[in-house]
């Protein structure tokens, strides 16, 4: 059981982070705290992707090892380098997440200008009062 937790610790970390973010998004009343929760949630997924591409042991940077004019054509062994694709995917995902964060903050500003508060229950009270 202990082995199971130790060997897969990266997944436990990501699940833990994701749940923290999820809790903040669902339970917090303050809109900015919700946005922070959203960001933690998204970062957890980035950690998940990145951690899946990690390799331990004798990892090299193939592009440096076999430069032009070096030992010539050389088949690069898959076991020698970390999988670059998840990193590339996450670069795109980070861009998307920054976009989401920007839109969410902009909407939060709109709400603050309209109701003078960022607490969800106070906003709803304001709407009920009809102002």
């Amino acid at each position, binding site marked *: 059981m202990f082995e199971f937790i130790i060997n897969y610790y990266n997944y436990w970390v990501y699940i833990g982070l994701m749940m923290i973010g999820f809790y903040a998004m669902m339970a917090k009343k303050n809109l900015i705290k919700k946005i922070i929760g959203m960001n933690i949630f998204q970062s957890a997924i980035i950690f998940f992707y990145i951690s899946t591409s990690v390799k331990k042991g004798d990892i090299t940077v193939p592009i440096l090892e076999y430069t032009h004019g070096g030992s010539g054509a050389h088949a690069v062994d898959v076991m020698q380098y970390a999988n670059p694709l998840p990193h590339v995917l996450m670069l795109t995902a980070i861009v998307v997440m920054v976009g989401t964060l920007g*839109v969410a903050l902009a909407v939060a500003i709109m*709400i603050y200008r309209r109701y003078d508060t960022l607490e969800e229950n106070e906003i709803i009270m304001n709407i009920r009062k009809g102002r």
Partner: protein
Amino acid sequence: MITQAPVLIVVIPLLAAFFCPLIGLWRKGLCYSWVVITLLLCVLASIDTLFAVIRNGTIHYHLGGWLPPFGIEYVIDHLNAMMLIVVSIISLTVAIYSKPTVERELPKKVVYFYTVFLLQVTGFLGIVITGDLFNLYVFLEIASLAGYALIAVGEDGAPLATFRYIVMGTIGACFYLLGIGYIYIATGSLNMADVQQLLPKLYDSKVILTAIAFLLAGLAIKMALFPVHVWLPDAYTKAPSASSALIASLMTKISLYVMIRVLFTVFKPQLSTKLLPVTDIMVWAGFVAICGGAIMALAQTDFKRMLCYIVVAEVGYIVGGVGLANATAMKGAILHILNDAVMTAGLFTVAGIIMYKTGHHDLSDFKGLFKKMPFTMSAFVIGALSIIGVPPTCGFFSKWYLIQGAVIAEHWAFIAALLGSSLINVILFFRIIEIGYVFNVSNTGHVHNGSNTTIIDEAPLSMLIPTVSIAVAIILIGLYNQTILSNIIAYAVPKF
């Protein structure tokens, strides 16, 4: 036929969106024509693609010449060729329709509205056309982000509704991203066709179970399946008329399309029908959504809000129809995606006209409208009859196939829900028709807060023509449903 047509469908609105603010700097009024011309080109490219697909079968377009498992691939088969037509024609119609309402509701934001409008359409078309799982995520987020912006500029209370939508929508998109992550770990590929080839050996593995659970949970939030629909009614009610006509009719349908893609293209059909009880759960989820949506719709006094709950019920039809997992029900479900997009667009455009003329969209605003705007209201009646499912309109035929499919699957509860919700729709719409006919307002003014005394008459032509043409399309799709079924949808149904 142009060989580059598939990529042009996405590139044209994307580039046009970049130029839209520049044109707006020069001449504000040109933005509208720019959007209409752009979307017209999109429609032409989609029609060209559809005919190419009907003639030669599935089109594979390799972006940048990179071959499939490594590069991004656009795959257009019969299902997405149909979706492309639906998306591009409805967005063109809404764009033509939008001019007076955008100028009235968002006088200072016309340029930005049209820019984001084009980005929204780019997102929709990209989701539909792509054959790559991660590319789909990116387009899903483009569509969602543009959607948030289009909704947030609406009437009072729209920002809070948008904020809730952002939180829910982000959870949905992140779940989808996690699902792809698990598929990528298991197979090392993101191309849908490639994944379908690689996965069957792994169907017993827990990783695939997790992946399909995350994917479907994420998409359920995006498509507003009943228990997680809470973001939809607020957001779509408070959005500006033009945005709600575009987003309400297309966003949920496109998420449904992605669900069909994931279940039957990324995974093989037998995984969700035989190995895992996915489809059984889906039928019951559809059942709950139909009942919940229909009952909640009864409780509404706001016209747009009522339409939103009808959309929730319609999502239930399609999810349930896919869940019945036989060819007839599947035919009905795909036809219903097409029909529902058209019907919802029709009703939301009517809601926009009423908002434009009376300034509100409550049910009580329908008083005496039949006399004052006969064309708009006849378009409304055709849309209403189609939602109810009265024969010559298209809504009847998809419901007919869904019920037939449910009989084949012997799922009686689903039939009961379908018929029950149709009856509830009768009550919903005849209540409005009664208000429109019976309660005549004697004087010319429709008095709201004592200040608004403008005479309510027929809508401007640029709003009326798109609305009426959608109503005509509802009847035409109904009359020619056999042509659509045998030429397009028959090929889109997976082999169970």
